[in-house]
């Protein structure tokens, strides 16, 4: 779960990390008033879950009231890479001499947290990591002990941070690690961490992503969740609790289990079709869930045919068959051809229940995918 910059900064500031004076605004008038309060020059920053906001025109530095008004008018309400900007953070501009990067994340290969420091702040750190891996100092942390002070110092000195601010940066890194740890962060980042002419260090941006599986014990952060789905169908999938990803093809795909659904997508592609979506109904789905899944895929206007592939372990074939019947029997005419393959637990019972006047049944995954690709091509031709 991603927090907005303003939310992450609140959490960082509460933990003692210095952040610039700032106010949140959702109208042009509020933004101008906020600019007057924090003082000029200030930055007007779109609050949306998008990387590279600056380049996309979502951040502007303004020097007076008319510039503030102009910037607020252009940013509030704009479409930033598919997201509507509803709020801006108006923030005192930091007069910096240097931009650093500090971050904490989980190194899944090592199975341990890793803290990172670089003097190449202010740019995309993934690009730095790819082109100049040595420009980032990394320190793995033993989760049983947490970050020792020496580890923070080591990372900061190894990165080549100016001695005048090394102590402050190390202290910020430790604070960042501790809050990442206590708040179940998946990523915590300050980029850039700005250094001023009089050697003060300020977090000019803030990223805090929380492990979705840990929200049950972070109730205050869970309340901050404002994850905007990129499209209506993805929003609907969130409501139903499906793992769903929308793609651009015309073969709708429903199945159980992430690996098997991914494989079904791959096979659609392999047999010359184009997948329209990834939809995993999960383990042990009941009939109603199956009906919801079909309704969802039918409502995607790009879909010309649907392949429904179930290999039941804890999912039962009879439940799936009932759900498919329920979904299809509400139509006078089946909106899109549905190809079903049922295997595993209670698949025999499922085959008996399934209304084969409404669907095409195939015995293997490969045959079902080929039939769906052919049906989709026929419809779209």
């Amino acid at each position, binding site marked *: 779960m991603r927090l907005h910059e303003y939310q992450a900064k609140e959490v960082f500031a509460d933990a003692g990390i210095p952040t610039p004076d700032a106010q949140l605004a959702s109208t042009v008038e509020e933004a101008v008033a906020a600019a007057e309060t924090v003082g000029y020059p200030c930055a007007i920053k779109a609050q949306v879950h998008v*990387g590279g906001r600056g380049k996309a025109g979502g951040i502007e530095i303004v020097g007076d009231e008319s510039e503030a008004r102009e910037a607020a008018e252009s940013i509030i309400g704009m479409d930033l890479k598919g997201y509507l900007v509803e709020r801006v953070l108006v923030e005192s501009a930091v007069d910096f001499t240097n931009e650093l990067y500090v971050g904490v994340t*989980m190194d*899944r*290969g090592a*199975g*341990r*947290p890793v803290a990172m420091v670089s003097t190449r702040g202010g740019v995309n750190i*993934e*690009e730095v*990591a*790819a082109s100049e891996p040595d420009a980032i100092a990394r320190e793995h942390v*033993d*989760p*049983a002990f947490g970050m020792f002070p020496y580890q923070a110092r080591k990372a900061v000195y190894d990165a080549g941070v100016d001695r005048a601010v090394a102590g402050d940066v190390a202290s910020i890194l430790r604070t960042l690690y501790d809050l990442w*740890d206590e708040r*179940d962060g*998946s990523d915590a980042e300050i980029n850039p961490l700005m250094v001023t002419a009089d050697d003060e260090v300020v977090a000019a941006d803030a990223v805090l992503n929380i*492990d979705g*599986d*840990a929200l*049950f*014990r972070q109730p205050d952060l869970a309340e901050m969740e404002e994850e905007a789905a990129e499209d209506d169908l993805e929003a609907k999938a969130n409501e139903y609790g499906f*793992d769903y*990803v929308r*793609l651009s093809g015309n073969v709708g795909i429903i*199945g*159980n*289990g*992430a*690996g*098997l*659904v*991914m*494989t079904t*997508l*791959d*096979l*659609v*592609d*392999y047999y010359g079709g184009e*997948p329209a979506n*990834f939809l*995993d109904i999960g*383990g042990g789905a009941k009939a109603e869930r199956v009906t919801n899944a079909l309704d969802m895929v039918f409502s995607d206007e790009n879909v010309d045919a649907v392949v429904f592939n179930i*290999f*039941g*372990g*804890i999912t039962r074939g009879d439940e799936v068959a009932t759900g498919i019947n329920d979904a299809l029997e509400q139509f006078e005419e089946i909106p899109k051809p549905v190809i079903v393959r049922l*295997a*595993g*637990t209670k698949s025999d019972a499922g085959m008996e229940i399934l209304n084969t006047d409404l669907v095409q049944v195939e015995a*293997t*995954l*490969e045959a079902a995918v080929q039939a769906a690709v052919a049906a989709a091509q026929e419809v779209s031709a």
Partner: protein
Amino acid sequence: MSVLVDEDTRVVVQGITGGEGKFHTEQMLDYGTNVVAGAVPGKGGQEVAGVPVYDTVDRAARAADADASVVFVPPAFAADALFEALDAPLDLVVAITEGIPTQDMARVKRAEAETDTHLVGPNCPGVITPGAAKLGILPGNIFSSGNVGLVSRSGTLTYQIVDNLTNRGLGQSTAIGIGGDPIIGTDFIDALELFEADRDTHAVVMCGEIGGQDEEEAARFIGEYMDTPVAGFIAGRTAPPGKRMGHAGAIVSGSGTGTAESKIDALEGVGVPVGDTPEEVADHVEDVL
């Protein structure tokens, strides 16, 4: 022979009184698994499906002389259950639970490193040695006894590939579902090492998916250390970057690491044939046996 579990494995079910715990205990017993005890705090003295329940794993393991556990404990309490199992100690702990916080798993993994216990999972279907025992939720009827070892990050994809193998008469020595989470206990290399040392495993199917670097590292291991032939499958060739495909671990990062292409190249680079379809995986196994 087999790896990790056989007909002598004595199993404690942690969370046996819950809905899933009870249902799958019955299924495991039906399959012939020696489920000898359950462990649930506060439920000591009860019985589930004829299996005695104890308050702690330590008591269950001592009273019933158990050497393995299967964990059905809900995510919020699962890490504690895993620490308890590691402390008992047991030889094998299979964590079925999905949705354990990642930081909890980092601590569990840290504790596991100081024991000789094999932790499998979490978020996995379990381990089965066909005809002998199953620990987990895998549907026993699709498996058959034989000489193909199988290790996979996915549950239902494992069933699909096992079905393809069984239909060709290619039985399995042991199948291990290692789970779809970013931080897991037993990884591909641990499983491959076990299969390489098992005299009755004559070929191995390794079934990976997008995300992380584990398949690439496993390919290096296969190239350097394995004589047993390996056939591969990688799910997620068509997955777009930055989107989580169901499993928490199945994501191609924005910078392009964790792609199916990189994993397939790594495997083919060490002579592991990678099937385009599950059926082709069975072809490859038939070729090497």
